[in-house]
């Protein structure tokens, strides 16, 4: 345990001055900002004030300028944007050691390679939750400033549950991204993989079979495809996602432990 804590502490120190961290927060914060703009537009003129994809979405989900709609938008932003941003975070955290040439310094130490990777996974989880908590706080602030109607603890807790479960699902899904960062020896390969997965999640989701494609599941769960699609999720949907996460984690550990580090 002492070794694990030391590895975690080293990981926090490594990222102390990372500018990428702030870039990720800024990028992710676009979600509540656009959510708030969305609310302002609806508030002023209903869905008539919207156009394009915004309008069709607002009409489809009967969006109104209230807390229920706004908190829903925040969850959906995590469900879609989280795949990209969390994937970006995982790519960076796991790929940087190769891109910065420091991987070889981590391979012959009195601390095991597994513990070093576990520290990275822990830091990654911490980073992702920090992102969603920051967005939630920002969303609550915007909601208060906009004086949205319809606040209730029940609604808030209901959305909070969806919000954090969506987050957890995406966090689990990025273990294969960590593997591709080690396999590709840098962050470009996993970023490419994230982009492909994001596109596939949209296509497969639109085909109506997204409930069996792990990268579509968080988006569907967050409600971005509507309540009907959400109801299609079943135990198998979540089981496949969890298996993907576990396989990704094990592949990352085994690759780092047993492959040749040229």
């Amino acid at each position, binding site marked *: 345990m002492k070794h694990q804590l030391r590895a975690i502490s080293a990981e926090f120190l490594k990222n102390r001055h990372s500018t990428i961290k702030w870039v990720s927060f800024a990028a992710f914060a676009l979600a509540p900002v656009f959510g708030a703009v969305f609310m302002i537009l609806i508030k002023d003129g209903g869905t008539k004030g919207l156009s394009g994809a915004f309008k069709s979405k607002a009409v489809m989900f009967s969006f109104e300028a209230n807390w229920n709609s706004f908190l829903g938008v925040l969850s959906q932003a995590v469900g879609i944007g989280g795949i990209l941003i969390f994937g970006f975070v995982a790519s960076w955290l796991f790929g940087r050691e190769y891109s*910065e040439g420091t991987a070889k310094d981590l391979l012959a130490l*009195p*601390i*095991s390679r597994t*513990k070093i990777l576990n520290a990275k996974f822990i830091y990654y989880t911490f980073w992702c939750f920090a992102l969603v908590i920051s967005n939630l706080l920002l969303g609550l602030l915007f909601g208060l400033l906009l004086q949205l109607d319809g606040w209730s603890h029940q609604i808030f807790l209901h959305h909070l549950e969806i919000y954090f479960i969506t987050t957890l699902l995406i966090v689990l899904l990025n273990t294969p991204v960590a593997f591709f960062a080690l396999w590709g020896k840098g962050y470009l390969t996993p970023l490419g993989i994230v982009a492909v997965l994001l596109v596939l999640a949209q296509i497969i989701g639109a085909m109506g079979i997204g409930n069996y494609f792990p990268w579509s599941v968080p988006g569907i769960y967050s409600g971005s495809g509507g309540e009907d699609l959400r109801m299609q999720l079943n135990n198998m949907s979540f089981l496949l996602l969890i298996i993907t996460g576990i396989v990704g984690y094990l592949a990352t550990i085994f690759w780092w432990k047993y492959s040749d580090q040229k």
Partner: protein
Amino acid sequence: MNIIQTTNLSKRYGDILAIDNVSMNVKQGEIYGFLGLNGAGKTTMIRLLLGLTKPDSGLCELFQNHKGPGNTYWNDVGYLIETPYAYPNLSVRENLQVICKLRGLVEKSVIPEILERLKLQPYKNRKEKNLSLGNKQRLGLAKALIHKPKLLILDEPINGLDPAGIVEVRELLKELAEKHNTTIFLSSHILSEIAKITSRIGIIHNGALIKEIKSSELDSQIIKKLCISTHDNETAQKILLEKGFEASIHHEMLELISHDAINKPEEIATILVQHQTPPTQLFVFKEDLEHYFLRIIRE
């Protein structure tokens, strides 16, 4: 006691035999120089020693053990492989703190000491990305030395250092071996540098260890000859032969390789002058270490 021991070690990458049946040992307190051209297999050998790469066949042991990462005995090993990299956004001190955490060292006691030793004190708060190449190399060495390892494995440790830095590192390594009995395995492609500090040299070429030699014996292995040019080399050759000095003619020059001739060129000159074939040129040729190295790998 053998600190490094390899037995019939081989490693292949596709069609390339990177390490070819290498058996070698390095004893405690020894500075072993591992010499080879770029691509000869030096870095692969170091990666095998550190367990970063697994051998296809053969055995590789440090401290007469073969243990994977995570074992405390890795705190007896310090290493620097190829270009030293560090976290660019962290300062020198913070980079050392990361290593301290991973090695379980008490930062307050070891960091000031190593900063002082590697003359990095003025740069302790400077970010790695803003360091000069030489100071990056010093930081790499600081990371390898911070835990006072019993074995140091260094791949091209003087790369990027200025002449003063090279002398400092050389003195530091000598001190570690002499005063602290640290075993040092050092790779380089510059024989003249390696010869100044190592006690033994292994030459690797195309993955195979083709020669091992004590540094003290190096001088005797180097070609020395007395080269003479006269207006009539053939007559001069006969005269010298009559006086007991065997000479051969190469590229219109007489070459004598006997110790007597090399050590007393003035006697040879006197003989030739007395026989009316005075030398127009006379000099002792001594093969430099780089030529010696190239000759060995071509043989």
